[in-house]
């Protein structure tokens, strides 16, 4: 049995139809392992796809042709069609335009650790770069080249220096609240300040913890930051001059975690689960649901985010050219980038809760993990657990109310 080009093509894009993809993906993988002809054809298809990518990329906006930011485009749309600005939104719209929010880079680990209750080892998850979003509407997943990073990680002085540089210049303007357990979704919602949704597909009551809510700001010292980047091997492109002495204010709202089943105690704010050994098996039925409204970032308006994003993307293992191309495809003003280890996890896009999200799976031998993450109406959701409960996670996500 040989695979025809059409199936290989869909397989290449990780886009075999969901209903069959579980079984099919595995069958195809098995066949490919055993069949050099099909492997060769897959490689040919991949090569052709790469050529087409290059051809079509020529059509992309070049310098001077880029879109205006989504916020100014939206303002333009509202000017042309005044009926768009509903009364209740006028406040948010005007604040968006007058303060001219811009996205910037901050420690993603703080955000990811909160919204994703299972963390991959810190070096991988953080990707050594700074990434923050102004208001999250989108999620995209970036595979991180773990070998590249572990080289960086072994040179731990660099990580230390980066942490030092950040903390030296950082001021906490609001400390996170003491975690509080809420008896139900309504109470949690009152404490947290947003509508907390719970899955109707579960009959057991979760332990709901309300926590977080911090704000901090820091001042960038461009020379020091560039020196660190140079040392780490990321000297191109250079940090823009406009970033020097830039004051960056970050606000991470209060969020909630709802723990179903037997879960480790998260009240102390620990968010790593030790997934191996007996501890792992004890928490096999633990499912964590996290909800947090989008963090916001305030920076001077002249900071060029795409350029910073290009630098950060290189930490994931991309070459400067790849980072440049990738950076142009993301609207950094509204996208949360989730880094995952390239060889340690797989991911795919899934339809969930009426939007497109990502299911990330990490098939560690005795304790596989999964995380389902998506954004809806400005709130970031994540459901994670051990074992093979991804289908249940999807059911939970689709039954949120």
């Amino acid at each position, binding site marked *: 049995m040989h695979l025809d080009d059409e199936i290989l093509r869909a397989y290449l894009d990780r886009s075999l139809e969901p209903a069959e993809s579980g079984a099919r993906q595995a069958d195809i993988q098995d066949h490919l392992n055993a069949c050099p002809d099909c492997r060769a054809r897959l490689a040919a298809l991949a090569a052709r796809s790469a*050529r087409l990518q290059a051809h079509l990329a020529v*059509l992309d906006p070049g310098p001077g*042709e880029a*879109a205006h930011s*989504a916020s100014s485009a939206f303002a333009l749309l509202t000017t*042309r069609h005044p009926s768009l600005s509903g009364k209740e939104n006028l406040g948010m719209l005007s604040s968006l335009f007058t303060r001219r929010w811009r996205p910037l880079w901050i420690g993603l680990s703080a955000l990811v650790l909160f919204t994703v209750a299972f963390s991959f080892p810190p070096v991988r998850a953080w990707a050594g770069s700074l990434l923050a979003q102004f208001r999250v509407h989108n999620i995209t997943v970036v595979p991180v080249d773990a070998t590249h990073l572990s080289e960086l990680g072994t040179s731990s002085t660099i990580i230390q220096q980066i942490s030092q540089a950040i903390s030296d210049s950082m001021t906490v303007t609001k400390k996170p609240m003491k975690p509080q357990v809420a008896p139900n979704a309504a109470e949690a919602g009152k404490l947290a300040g947003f509508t907390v949704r719970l899955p109707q597909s579960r009959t057991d009551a979760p332990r709901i913890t309300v926590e977080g809510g911090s704000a901090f700001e820091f001042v960038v010292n461009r020379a020091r930051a560039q020196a660190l980047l140079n040392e780490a091997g990321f000297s191109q492109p250079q940090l823009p001059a406009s970033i020097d002495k830039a004051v960056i204010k970050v606000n991470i709202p209060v969020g909630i975690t709802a723990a179903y089943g037997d879960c480790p105690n998260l009240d102390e704010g620990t968010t790593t689960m030790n997934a191996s050994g007996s501890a792992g098996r004890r928490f096999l039925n633990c499912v964590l649901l996290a909800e947090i409204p989008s963090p916001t970032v305030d920076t001077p308006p002249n900071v060029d985010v795409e350029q910073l994003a290009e630098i950060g993307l290189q930490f994931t293992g991309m070459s400067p050219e790849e980072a440049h191309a990738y950076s142009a495809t993301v609207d950094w003003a509204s996208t949360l980038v989730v880094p995952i280890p390239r060889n340690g996890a797989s991911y795919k896009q899934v339809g969930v809760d009426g939007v497109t999200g990502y299911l990330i799976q990490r098939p560690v031998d005795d304790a596989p993990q999964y995380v389902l993450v998506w954004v809806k*109406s400005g709130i970031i959701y994540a459901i994670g657990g051990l074992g093979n409960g991804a289908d249940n996670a999807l059911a939970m996500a689709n039954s949120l109310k």
Partner: protein
Amino acid sequence: METTDFQSLFFQHYALVYRVLFRVVGNKEDAQDLALEAFWKLWQQSPAQLENPAGWLFRVATRLGYNALRAAKRRERYELETARQALESGQDPDRAVERADERRRVRGVLERMTERDAQLLVLRYSGLAYKEIAAALDISPNSVGTLLARAEEAFEKLYSDDSHSEGRSEGGPHASRR
């Protein structure tokens, strides 16, 4: 449609819609105008029809883009406009001309394909997932892989035929075959 949902959709998809339209029409002002027009049409839709708002949005956007492109006169204007902008943006002139040439060639090839195949390639290589492409082009998600493989093959054949023929006239025949 709820304002907050619409705003969410706008922020989520604007950049990509612009990019897709830019790839089709090649011109910043028109790409933006058409992008806003597509979103305006989305706003006017009743919620009941929108099982897959993103798909619907891209369908409208590509249709608007190709309608705009089909006016032959405007296409020449786009090419000139692009070249002018490139030069003004301070790019190396040789590089700008090279790029403009390459764009003309790629667009020329796309125009000689069926509109559906051309749209398929533009959408896929702008990063849309199969489901969204299927909704945008009104085909079944199962057939996206098949059609994509064939469209890619067709593109390469046309592209290499193209580079083998010398002195071809600028702006090949406009193909409106479906």
